[in-house]
């Protein structure tokens, strides 16, 4: 029996069905199901090594399917008609560094039957002023915007963004987010950055060890974990309070004890009573990152 809501085939642009993938003896994907629906930005969230890039490369036809099935636009992901209708921004460090931005874009545009105009691509990616610069001379953020322009060259119906802002500084990241947000295109966005799915995705699946562990809107993912995050520097150890009422998880991060709890006031009173040298106490709302960490928490 299908326990996920089913969607008619017209509204599903891409699908992984019970896909299992190994690299040698390493299990990268474990019976993963994934659907990309028309018009949505699907966030694929997970820590490094969770299988996000493997899933994307299967959807792109860059990897041979070992077990399960993969379809894009109802066809084989490597089919020519599929290649012509999609775009991809991969974790790729470079294209021809000796060619200018315009030359690189012109070359990639030539691969597609109905490409967007080079001028339109330059303006969408915000790189008009870089068009005559050599790609190799650009900064990391500028390079990523060029890669973004290349991903849009086909005027895609489906866009794959694999860790698009990894390695970028905050300014460059926000600029690229702004550019992605202006698009009206179905997209798959893989990232380990929770703020990124919060900013861009309509729906999120969380994968860990190649399995889907959650599926929902960014706010539903957040609501998986209620409560507050209490942080402080104290001699109290996590083990001493894991059994305390309301505590969801407790751990040490750096100098701080971090406790996620539904009863923060009770916990704070108790912590202060246990250790009068306690300092640097903060109580925060649980952000997506904390929700995510608890979802991917290893079973003991």
């Amino acid at each position, binding site marked *: 029996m299908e326990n996920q809501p089913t969607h008619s085939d017209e509204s599903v642009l891409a699908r992984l069905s019970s896909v299992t993938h190994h690299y040698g003896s390493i299990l990268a994907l474990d019976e993963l199901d994934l659907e990309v629906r028309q018009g949505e930005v699907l966030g694929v969230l997970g820590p490094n090594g969770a299988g996000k890039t493997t899933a994307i490369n299967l959807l*792109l*036809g*860059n*990897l*041979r399917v070992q077990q399960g099935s993969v379809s894009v636009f109802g066809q084989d992901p490597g089919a*020519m008609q599929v*290649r*012509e209708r*999609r775009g*991809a921004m*991969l*974790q*790729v*460090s*470079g*294209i*021809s560094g*000796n*060619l200018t931005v315009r*030359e690189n874009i*012109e*070359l*990639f545009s*030539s*691969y*597609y*039957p109905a490409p967007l105009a080079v001028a339109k691509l330059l303006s969408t990616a915000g790189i008009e002023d870089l068009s005559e610069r*050599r790609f190799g001379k650009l900064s990391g953020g500028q390079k990523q915007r060029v*890669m973004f322009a*290349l991903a849009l060259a*086909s005027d895609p119906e489906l866009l794959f963004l694999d860790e698009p802002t990894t390695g970028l500084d905050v300014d460059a990241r926000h600029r690229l987010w702004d550019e992605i947000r202006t698009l009206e295109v179905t997209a798959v966005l893989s990232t380990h950055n929770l703020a990124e799915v919060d900013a861009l995705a309509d729906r999120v699946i969380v994968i860990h060890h190649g399995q889907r562990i959650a599926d929902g809107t960014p706010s539903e993912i957040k609501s998986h974990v209620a409560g507050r995050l209490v942080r402080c520097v104290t001699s109290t150890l996590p083990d001493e309070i894991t059994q305390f009422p309301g505590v969801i998880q407790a751990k040490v991060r750096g100098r701080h004890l971090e406790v996620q709890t539904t009863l923060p006031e009770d916990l704070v009173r108790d912590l202060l009573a246990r250790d009068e040298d306690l300092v640097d106490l903060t109580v925060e709302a649980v952000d997506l990152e904390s929700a995510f960490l608890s979802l991917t928490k290893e079973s003991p």
Partner: protein
Amino acid sequence: MTVNRRIRVYLLEAHYQFIDVLREPLFSISVLAFPLVFYLFFGVILNFGGTSMPMQTYMLATYGVFGILGPALFNFGVGLATERDTGMLLLKQTTPMPVGAYFSAKVTTALIFGATVVSALFLIAAYAAGVALFRWQWFALAGVLLAGVVPFCTLGLAIGAWVKGRSAVAIVNLIFLPMSMLSGLWIPIYVFSDFMQNMALVLPAYHHAQLALKVIGMDSGQPILLHVIVLVGQTFIFLIVAALGFRRVGGFSIRKS
């Protein structure tokens, strides 16, 4: 993909790969200038041959081979390894670009650089070194030299399919320079000991040089068929080695270090 669009992709890919390489000063200088400077120096200025074996004519053929070998090995070996490691090949693989366009652009680039070197060598030979050949010999020599792009590109392909981008330059040089030396491209093969001359029989550049020397009547006297068979056989071996290399890493995938 329509025929017109396919032709356009092949042309643009070749055009931009050529520009890309041309803008790499180290590549242009080393593959263009070295054969010309060496030929001028060893073949023309330091002419140590006797009258029976005019060195400037002999070395026109062997430095011609050297001039074809360099761009083919570097453009394929280093270019392919680097472009795979940066992920550019993987990115192109996700587009509708025909794989043939990428490889034919590499061959075309090697051919243009090789033809440039050969033309310049011919000009130096005819106007500065006083090399006198029959007209058919000029054409036949140019044809034989340019045909060397095929085995040498497949050798470059085999190297590029196996090595990492970072080590590609060193590995190509480790093959390029000793093979040039041992094939008699710099110093005539007949001054080597018999043992060294026998060793040279395994080197594709030796057989290619012998074919080029055959045009001007200065080869070691082995049959043409022997050289052709060895070169064709090695071309197939290089293709198989390259295919195994691609299979090992799964097509154009980035090889993680």
